[in-house]
């Protein structure tokens, strides 16, 4: 199974149409990767689908970086009993 970070990068690459190899943990979704308002929402929706979890809207949308998303999603998966590869 791919790690959380690999899956987050893959989803991000697909939604934002960027090369996954260029995405780094410190990248900011908006500033570095160019996410628009609606793409930010699409990212959250796609992360939910990818991991089979439900995230609190305001908290999820306040996450700014790839690394932050990995950490946040890992926490939510643990809370909701979803198996992941860290």
């Amino acid at each position: 199974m791919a790690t959380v970070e690999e899956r987050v990068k893959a989803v991000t690459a697909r939604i934002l149409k960027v090369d996954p190899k260029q995405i780094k943990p410190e990248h900011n979704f908006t500033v570095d990767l160019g996410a628009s308002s609606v793409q930010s929402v699409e990212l959250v929706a796609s992360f939910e689908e990818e991991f089979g979890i439900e995230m609190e809207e305001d908290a999820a949308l306040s996450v700014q970086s790839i690394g932050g998303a990995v950490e946040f999603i890992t926490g939510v998966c643990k809370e909701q009993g979803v198996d992941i590869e860290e």
Partner: protein
Amino acid sequence: MDKARKQHSLVDAQRPNLLEDTFPYNLPPLIHFSQQPVIEQIDGKPVEFDFAGIKDRDIVITDTTFRDGQQARPPYTIDQMVHIYDRLARLGGPNGVIRQTEFFLYTKNDRETLDRCRALGHTYPECTGWIRAVKGDFRLVKEAGLKETGMLTSCSDYHIFQKLRFRSRAECIDSYCEVVAAALEAGVRPRCHLEDVTRADIDGFVLPFVDRLMEMSSQVPDEQSVKIRLCDTLGFGVCYPGAELPRSVPKLIYKINRECGVPSERIEWHGHNDFHRVHANAATAWLYGCGAVNTTLFGFGERTGNPPLESAIIEYISLKGGPCGIDTLVISELADYMRSIGLPIPDNYPFAGRAFNTTRAGIHADGLRRDEQIYNIFDTALLLGRPPRVAITDKSGTDGVVHWVNEFFGLKGDDRINKIRLHKLARWVIDQYEEHGRLTTISDEELEAKTKELLPDYWEKYKPVR
């Protein structure tokens, strides 16, 4: 100027102060006045006005939708006027906040309209007439069984000399007073319409004329005494303190009310909107001692129109601090009715336009999503049956779509669908503009169809019942 400067300390807070004494939300925002009198310099002397006392003073709205309002459009049918009159009665309520409305009396249709309106049995608005300043016309008022009628008594020299062709002001006043005497003799209360008063010689003509009317009134019972309607015929009136006569609304009201001694309940302000001052001038007239403001529904009247009745209604509640029996929901009913009979009301027209509380900006939609009070003037759903709305364009953002869907499904509080669940619809909206080059607003019908297509589960659960 420097003496006024002082330091201001931050009053830090961890909880918001929403100023609910002024913005109660279940009412229009209230207007509070200091208990200190307002001072206006008149004839070189300070004169006090008690604005705060307006809460306890009897102020009313009068209506001229069927007279001035009708001069600006094709005639209403009898059925239409009866329908409107009936709604005016409900809107103004049992306390008669809408105290009177005036009718033409000249044609068979005029008289049938009056009869049918009176047959509805409403106490308010009282029906009054409107005639030319011609002695013979009082026969019409008497035959109609009316107690009061308006009559033209134009008072600027533009009218006295240029239009009516009197040879002198004295001849003009004598002529007017002859007609007033005829009205009093016929047992009809005359309401003298001082046409073009904001362009008249106040000291040289208007005040001597009103003095004479007061003298004539002293000879008859109170209920017949002459009323004065101050007609700002071309909208020249201004409400700024310090402005000079004849344009000063405060000074005009003062002169008529206190110098001539016409009681407030016998003074009425009739404005026109040629300089966009119509509503502020009417409210100013109330504050300075005028008892009635004369209005038309949606401000529809000669040229640029009159003080809008519905704005006066909202102002009345704001000044009085409560609805006083007014049924504000009727404003929306009347707007729908007027549109249905072909009276155009601009979409952005306050309180009644289709989009008066519709926002297009995404950042405003975000505010509405968090708390509708952030971007709504008052509880428009409660008072007007019109919840705040979002029009969907490329500027609406995801928040706009979220607000539209929740409002469409009627979902509130925790039941509201969040933006994560609505991303497909938000994407479709964005693509309309970014991918397809659309330039127009997306209609409610299109959004409804897309909601059904992209959110079938929510549609099944919440679809509106029609």
